[in-house]
C-alpha cells in the first residue's frame, strides 16, 4: 500500500458541527446578520465532479485498469485499458501480437459521427470551456465481448494477447485476487469494485490478459476457455451464450465525445465577494447561469440508464424529441436528445433557481453551426487541431525529453480541448517516454543511460508543464507517481492509490 494511502486510512471519523453549535458560533461571530440567500456567485464544479456521464465514467474505469505499472523480466510495462493495451518498454524475444478481427459473430458496426457544434444564440452567452475526445477505431485494442445488445452499458470484457515473451507480467495486486480453472487453464482474476483483470497462459506459451467491467468470475472462466491466438490475431472460438463480439467502431465510440460549457457571464453580486477566478484556470468564471452540452455514445439505452422510467417527460422542442428531467430543488434541468446510438445531453444550471420553461427556452436557442463558426467562438487559449502542434511546441520548451521522443500522437490529435488538457496529455506522454527509456537502458545494460533517465524522472516535481497540466484534475500527481516507480526503488509499482492513480497511464497517450 502506498504510504499516503496508509496514512489516509488513519483519517479519523469526526462528528459534524451540530446545528445548534453552528448557529451559536455564527451569532458569536456575526451577530444577527441574516443567513445569506444563495447569490449568483457560485463557482461551478470541476469537470470531474459534474455528474456521471458515460464517457467520463468509462474513461475512469478503463484508467483504473490502466494505472497498473508492472515490472516484469523485460522491464517496466504500463498496462492500459485505454487507447493501447500494452506499451512494451523493452525488446522482446518475439513480436508482441496485436489483436484483430475475431472469427466469431460481430455486432453491427456503429457509425462514429462528428459531435454537433453548437452555440447559444442568446445575448451574453459564450463558451467558457470545451473538452472532447475523438479516438480513431483501432484494431490492436483487443477483442471486446459483451452480452448481445448491451454494450456499452452492460458487462464487457477486453482480451489481448501478450505474446509468449512476457512471463514477468503480473496482475494488479488488488486485494481480491483468486485463481479459477478454465478447462485446465489457470486464470488469475483480480477484482476491484466492478472492474476485473485476469491473466493466463496457454500450453503453447501464449500469454493473455483480460480486463472487464461488471463481469463475474464465471463469465471470465467461460471466456478464457474460448480464447486463442492463431498466429495473427486473437480469435474467439466459443462465444458464450448470449454474448457477441463488439465491433472496433463501437469500442472506439466510447472514447469519442464532446463537452462544451456555456455561461451567461452574469457577474456575481456584489462583485467583491467570492469573485475570484480560479488561479489554476480550472474553474470557469463565476456566473449566474450555465449551460453545458455533452454528446456521447449510448442513445436510448443510455437514457434508460440515466433517467428512471417514472422520471422525465418526453416533449418535442425546437423540432427535437427530448426527454426533460429536473433536479429536486430547482437549480438544475437536464434535457436529453437521442440521435440514433448517440445521446446529446444538455444541462441548464442556475445558482439560485431555474424553471423547466426557462431551460427549454434556452435549449431552443441552441444553434448548430459549422466548424469555423464554432471554433471562432471558443475562449482564447482553446487548442484546436490547427493550433495544437504549436501549443505542444511551446509546452515542450524547457521540458527534458529522451532522444527520439515523438510528440506526434499528442500534437496530431484532432480533438479540441483547453490548453491544460493538452499539457496533461503531453506531461504523461513525456513521463512515459522516460519510463520506456529507463527500462530499455536497463535491458541493454547501459547504466549511464539508465541513470540519465532516472535523473530526468527525479526532476518531474519541477517540470513547469505540471503547473499547466489540468490543475485540479490531479494529472500532476499522477505523473509524479509514475516517476516514483523509477526514482524510488522501494515503491511497489502494483500498489495504486485511487483516485489519483486512476487518472491514466502511458497507454492513454
Amino acid at each position, binding site marked *: 500500500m502506498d504510504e499516503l494511502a496508509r496514512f489516509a486510512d488513519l483519517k479519523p471519523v469526526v462528528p459534524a458541527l451540530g446545528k445548534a453549535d453552528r448557529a451559536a458560533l455564527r451569532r458569536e461571530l456575526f451577530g444577527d446578520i441574516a*443567513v445569506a440567500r444563495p447569490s449568483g456567485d457560485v463557482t461551478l464544479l470541476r469537470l470531474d465532479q459534474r455528474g456521471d456521464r458515460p464517457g467520463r465514467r468509462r474513461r475512469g474505469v478503463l484508467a483504473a485498469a490502466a494505472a497498473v505499472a508492472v515490472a516484469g523480466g523485460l522491464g517496466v510495462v504500463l498496462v492500459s485499458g485505454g487507447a493501447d493495451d500494452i506499451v512494451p518498454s523493452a525488446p522482446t524475444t518475439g513480436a508482441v501480437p496485436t489483436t484483430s478481427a475475431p472469427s466469431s459473430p460481430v455486432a453491427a458496426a456503429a457509425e462514429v459521427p462528428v459531435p454537433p457544434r453548437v452555440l447559444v444564440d442568446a445575448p451574453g452567452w459564450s463558451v467558457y470551456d470545451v473538452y472532447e475526445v475523438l479516438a480513431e477505431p483501432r484494431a490492436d485494442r483487443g477483442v471486446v465481448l459483451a452480452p448481445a445488445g448491451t454494450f456499452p452499458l452492460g458487462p464487457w470484457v477486453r482480451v489481448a494477447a501478450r505474446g509468449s515473451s512476457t512471463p514477468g507480467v503480473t496482475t494488479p495486486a488488488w486485494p481480491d485476487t483468486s485463481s479459477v480453472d478454465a478447462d485446465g487453464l489457470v486464470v488469475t482474476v483480480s477484482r476491484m469494485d466492478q472492474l476485473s483483470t485476469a491473466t493466463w497462459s496457454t500450453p503453447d506459451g501464449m500469454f493473455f490478459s483480460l480486463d472487464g467491467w461488471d463481469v463475474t468470475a464465471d463469465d471470465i472462466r467461460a471466456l478464457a476457455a474460448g480464447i486463442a491466438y492463431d498466429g495473427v490475431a486473437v480469435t474467439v472460438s466459443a462465444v458464450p451464450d448470449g454474448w457477441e463480439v463488439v465491433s472496433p467502431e463501437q469500442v472506439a465510440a466510447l472514447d469519442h465525445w464532446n463537452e462544451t460549457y456555456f455561461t451567461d457571464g452574469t457577474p456575481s453580486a456584489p462583485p467583491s465577494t467570492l469573485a475570484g477566478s480560479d488561479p489554476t484556470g480550472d474553474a470557469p468564471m463565476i456566473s449566474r447561469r450555465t449551460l453545458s452540452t455533452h454528446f456521447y455514445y449510448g442513445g436510448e439505452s443510455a437514457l434508460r440508464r440515466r433517467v428512471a422510467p417514472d422520471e422525465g417527460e418526453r416533449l418535442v422542442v425546437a423540432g427535437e424529441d427530448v426527454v426533460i428531467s429536473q433536479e429536486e430543488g430547482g437549480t438544475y434541468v437536464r434535457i436529453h436528445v437521442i440521435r440514433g446510438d448517440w445521446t446529446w445531453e444538455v444541462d441548464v444550471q442556475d445558482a439560485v433557481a431555474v424553471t423547466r420553461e426557462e431551460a427549454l427556452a434556452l435549449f431552443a436557442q441552441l444553434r448548430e453551426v459549422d466548424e469555423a463558426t464554432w471554433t471562432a467562438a471558443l475562449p482564447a487559449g482553446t487548442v484546436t487541431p490547427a493550433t495544437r502542434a504549436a501549443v505542444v511546441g511551446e509546452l515542450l520548451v524547457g521540458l527534458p525529453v529522451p532522444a527520439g521522443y515523438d510528440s506526434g500522437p499528442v500534437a496530431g490529435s484532432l480533438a479540441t480541448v483547453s490548453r491544460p488538457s493538452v499539457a496533461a496529455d503531453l506531461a504523461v506522454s513525456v513521463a512515459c517516454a522516460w519510463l520506456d527509456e529507463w527500462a530499455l537502458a536497463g535491458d541493454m545494460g547501459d547504466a549511464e543511460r539508465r541513470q540519465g533517465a532516472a535523473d530526468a524522472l527525479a526532476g518531474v516535481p519541477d517540470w513547469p508543464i505540471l503547473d499547466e497540466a489540468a490543475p485540479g484534475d490531479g494529472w500532476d500527481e499522477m505523473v509524479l507517481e509514475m516517476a516514483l516507480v523509477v526514482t524510488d526503488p522501494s515503491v511497489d509499482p502494483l500498489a495504486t492509490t485511487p483516485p489519483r492513480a486512476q487518472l491514466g497511464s502511458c497507454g492513454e497517450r
Partner: protein
Amino acid sequence: MSDDDTRATVAGWFDRYVDDVHTYAARRVGPELARDVVADTFRIALEQHRRYDPAQGDVRAWLFGIATNLLRRHWRTESRRLRATARSAGRATTEIDPLLRAVERVDAVRELDALLDEIDALDPGDRDVLVLTAWEDMTSAEVAAVLGIPAGTVRSRLNRIRTRLRASRTPAPAALEADHG
C-alpha cells in the same frame, strides 16, 4: 466596503465553508478544539479579509490556510490523537481477524508505531502537506493555494514525505533479530 458589508461577506463564507473547516480541524485536533479553531479562523478572516487575494486561490483555500496556521499550535494534541486513532485501527484489525498470528500483530503494531514516529518527526509544513493531501484529498495545486507555496514545492515535499514514511516500514535487521530472537 463598509464594516457591515465585510461582516455580511465573511458571514457568507462562514455559511458556505464552516462545515469543511470544522471537519478539517476536528480530524486534526478533535471536535473540542476544532470549535475554537473554527471560531478563530473566521475571526481572523473578518479582521484580515482585505488580505484575501483571489489570484492566490479560492476562499476555501484561504480559510484552510488560516486554520492550518492555527492548528500548528496544537501539534502535540494532533500527535496524541493520531496515535489513539492508530491504536483503535489496530484493535479493529485484530478483532476482525483474531487468528492473525501474534508475530504478525506485533509486526503490524511496530510498523504503525514507526510510521507515527516518522509523522511526528515531519516538520510542520510537511505534516500539513500530508494531511491536506491524504485526508482532505486535495491536489497539489489546492494544497499550494492553502499553504501559499508553489505547486512544485508541494510535489517535492510529497516525494520527500513518501520516502521518509516508506523508510519507516523497513525495520533494521538488528531490530528484527532482537524482536524474534
